[in-house]
């Protein structure tokens, strides 16, 4: 094995290794995606964020528009405060609703934004006024059982079908601030 042959093979080896690392970083991971695009911050408060994690997606109409930057608990109001970092090219109205959803049964938790009709737009640092907390399964079941117990006969309470759904739709009492 002479020197030039060794140098060649080592060069090939190192090049392959670096290519693999780049592959892992870019194609497999998400090194160059949104985290580095210019963005602005919005704050959203929830009663319960469920399984929301850092860097969870923020989607509007199913399109990725940003990431969850930080999550903390407000010690005075005991609410969860999530800071969302939104891509600068997207603007949202002041009456946008932020809700916590799950994609699929085992899917990941993300923040969904539904824009409203307000002509004014949210700026960097604004707080999203209307939020919808995550569905907590235990409360859902509890509400369902409660409703069931409320019925005098089986399935004859005209209101029972509605209230469980109301819980699911509004979270624990809905958060209209």
């Amino acid at each position, binding site marked *: 094995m002479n020197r030039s042959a060794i140098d060649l093979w*080592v060069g090939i080896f190192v090049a392959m290794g670096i290519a693999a690392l780049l*592959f*892992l*970083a870019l*194609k497999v991971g998400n090194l160059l995606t949104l985290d580095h695009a210019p963005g602005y911050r919005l704050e959203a408060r929830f009663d319960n964020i469920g399984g929301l994690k850092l860097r969870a*997606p923020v989607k509007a109409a199913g399109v990725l528009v940003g990431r969850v930057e930080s999550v903390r608990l407000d010690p005075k109001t005991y609410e969860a405060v999530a800071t969302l970092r939104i891509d600068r090219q997207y603007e949202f109205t002041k009456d946008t609703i932020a809700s916590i959803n799950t994609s699929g049964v085992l899917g990941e938790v993300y923040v969904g934004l539904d824009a409203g009709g307000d002509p004014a737009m949210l700026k960097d640092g604004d707080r999203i006024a209307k939020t919808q907390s995550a569905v907590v399964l235990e409360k859902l079941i509890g509400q369902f059982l409660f409703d069931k117990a409320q019925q005098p006969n089986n399935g004859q309470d005209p209101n029972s079908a509605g209230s469980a759904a109301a819980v699911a739709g509004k979270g624990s009492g809905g958060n209209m601030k």
Partner: protein
Amino acid sequence: MSAELAHGLAYWLRRLGGGVTGGISRLGFAARFLLAVLWYSPQAFRRIHLTLREIYFAGVLSLVIVLMSGMFVGMVLSLQGYETLKRYGSDEQLGILVALALVRELGPVIAGLLFASRAGSAITAEIGLMKTTEQLAAMEMMAVNPLARVVAPRFWGGVVSMPLLAALFSAFGIFGGYLVGVRLIGIDEGAFWGQMQAGVDFWPDVTNGIIKSVVFGFAVSLIAVFEGYDSKPTAEGVSTATTRTVVISSLAILALDFVMTAFMFRGGNV
């Protein structure tokens, strides 16, 4: 208790104690050895060709086994993962499953184990044989420090090769997973790569995998050169040293993996 039983017990206790103290003093010796190797390393880099040669023997010659194993592991992950995910209707998550398993754990660990058995044992045997045939002593008598000329290049050759091999293992594994998942089983290609990209983060998944492989590289390389250098200069001595390299490296990799994983992948809102 009879005298014989007490005797036997005392004997085994003495052996246990001796083993523990011997092991600890060996550990200290290995630490000093590491410092010495690091001290003489600049020479290994001035004569960069020595180190390049070792990267060839440790890294390039391990490529075949690493790439093939990576591909097979990825393929199996895909097969097994699909069966389980399908039960929960989440078969589209297959990409994330394969990628995370490989990048976080299997890539560094399995590549490390393969490296220890193939390259680590070869390094130990080589240094041990040089010791047995007095080549190291001859070098010393010629006023050439064997630590600088023989040990340090092999140490750094291993340290450089290991992360590259781990990355290649993971990459080929993901490719194998793709082959089975998309081509064989028929999962949507877009979902496979898209979910994977969304679910695998550069920090912490890929970088922690890289950190692990670097740490494993240091550990295996140190163990390999140390066992070779410290071997008894006989045929049995070299054989024992080679076996020790593989065994101790493997245990070290698994133990370090546990410690690092506990640190890196904690729960919480991360």
